């Protein structure tokens, strides 16, 4: 089953390698990983999406907690939570492709009429999949997307 895990870590060099190394050494898989410093710049927040049965996810959480710079780990999959990712698509500016992208909710952040445009789209991982599927492959020059970031609903915060 797919699990979304949020992690607070000390914002110091090498932390990301420790986390990635843990996953590769123990044979766990990372589907996506997002990391950035928080408002408290001594802390970084990660959102990690992985797959595994209950036993594996339990081990992943414990192993993450065992890493010295990891402050807090939470599997938010079971909580009512929100996830958003971002996608950028560079496509050939042909026909009504650009208008259709805008109608689907994308922002056009760069374009050269008749040549190309870059659309930015944010949403749930599923919405990103749908949007990408809606753009005809043969017009796509390149695309890039982030893994989701996520948090629980409600007034409680996941902080140090």
């Amino acid at each position: 089953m797919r699990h979304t895990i949020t992690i607070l870590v000390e914002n110091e060099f090498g932390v990301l390698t420790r986390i990635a190394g843990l996953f590769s050494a123990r044979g766990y898989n990372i589907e996506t990983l997002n990391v950035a410093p928080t408002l408290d710049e001594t802390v970084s927040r990660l959102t990690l999406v992985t797959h595994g049965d209950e036993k594996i996810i339990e081990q992943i959480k414990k192993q993450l907690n065992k890493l010295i710079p990891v402050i807090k780990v939470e599997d938010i999959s079971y909580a009512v939570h929100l996830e958003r990712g971002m996608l950028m698509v560079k496509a050939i500016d042909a026909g009504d492709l650009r208008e259709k992208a805008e109608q689907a909710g994308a922002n056009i952040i760069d374009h050269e009429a008749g040549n190309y445009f870059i659309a930015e789209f944010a949403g749930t991982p599923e919405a990103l999949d749908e949007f990408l599927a809606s753009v005809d492959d043969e017009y796509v020059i390149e695309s890039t997307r982030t893994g989701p970031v996520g948090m629980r609903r409600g007034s409680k915060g996941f902080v140090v």
Partner: protein
Amino acid sequence: MQMTGAEIFVECLKREGVEVIFGYPGGAVLPIYDAIFQQSHFKHILVRHEQAALHAANGYARVSGKCGVSLVTSGPGATNAITGLADSNADSIPNVCFTGQVPLALIGTDAFQEADIIGITRSATKHNFLVKDVKDLAMTIRQAFHIATTGRPGSVVVDIPKDLGFAKCEFEWPEEVNMRSYQPKTSGHSGQIKKAIKAMLKAKRPMLYSGGGIMNAVGSAALLKTLAHQLNAPVTNTLMGLGGIPFDDKHFVGMLGMHGTYEANMAVSHCDLLVSIGARFDDRVTGRLNAFAPDAKIIHIDVDPTSISKNVDADLPIVGDVGIVLQQMLEELSHQGGVPDVEALKLWWQQIDEWRAKDSLGFEQSTEGPIKPQTVIHKVHDITKGNAIVTTDVGQHQMWAAQHYGFREPHKFLTSGGLGTMGYGLPAAVGAAMAFPDEPIVVFTGDASIQMCIQELATAYQYRQKIVVVLLNNAYMGMVRQWQEMFHESRFSHSYFDSLPDFAKLAEAYGGVGITVDTLDELDKALEVAFGSQESFVFLDIAVAKEENVFPMVPAGAALNEMVLA
């Protein structure tokens, strides 16, 4: 007060209470070695290879209860240390290793003797640090010792660029270490402990299974014994846990697992409650997982949450230091005031005694035939009255030592359990001798293992350590040969040595006493010499039965109750 990084290093070690470190100098650590030369707070023991520095620090840590400390140079010095780091980490031994690094400005330039030690040692340590500013050095050293010695202990690397040794700053000793991201749990959850005691009193066939956690929690062996006696429950030890309960205690049923006793493995297979105390259900212990302790409710006490329900699902997990948890359990036991099920336990012990009667460790020694390796172990036990500090390498001799020596106390059996490092024994003995120079220290080793760190005879001689090396020489990599015989139709692929050195002469060349032993008669005399008043190490090269196998044995992939007895 302004101090150089090298002076700060010395000052911090002094304040951490370090008495001895093991190391090998080189370019990147010259400033630190210069400061060591000018101090008298701790001794430096010069090993002959960096791997040995780590094993010696490990041996020292295990017998002294203190943190092991080593110092090696950058590049090859540090890469040589990696086996020792992984070894200490696998066996949860506190071991801080300081590695030199090329000067800050050269990091990342493929400089002479540069290696990415933080990258290389990440998965071989509990944690590692690269110090980039001399102002951070004192706090980093403090944190390194804190991390190595608390929670589940392990190895920690502190990588120090050469120029930090010369750089100056104001020295400030951090009185406290408080890391928000590292707060190991020590006492067990009281609700869980209540439930555990209830289950223990209700059990009809209880079993205590203790491991290396008992060694790390100083004083916990006495608590384990009390608990076993109050519950009248049998106790089995892992390889790492031997000495956790005296070998001659009637509650002790021997080691369990691949080369455990019949009674221990049968009892685990038939118990209805298994209480794991500072052990981690290693594959060498459990045999085939789906047949491990099939009828038992499992209580698992461990300071490391990742060990719980990793291999075997725990019905009742208790995270905490085993010493504290055992104390809590004894208090709860007297509080609940219950008694174990006397009738059921009587039947349980009858059953165990029947299994015991098989005498699964029995062997026959003829007066004329070759010396059996087991005989040597028993004779060494007798002459040392079972009180020696015993180290081993890895293989058949290791298992025979574990099965036959008989340990009365914790911290007497030093062996590489998790990583299984050949070459561990001799340097570990060198380390142990620094803590207890006047105690008998025996290295049980094999003709293959001893050659992996044999250069440490020079260290033993330099410091006039009276270590006794007992080489059970069968001219094979015995355990490899045994597996090839049993599982590869006796195709002895590269497990035979036909160019072994004359070990006695080699020992003499290193400055010690070397004795070759071929007969039982010679053995007794040689042991008398070895454990008499010697001025240096003694090396006994004992020719033993070449094709003796270690039994009992649970073949890989088999269940504990499917063991082969002989």
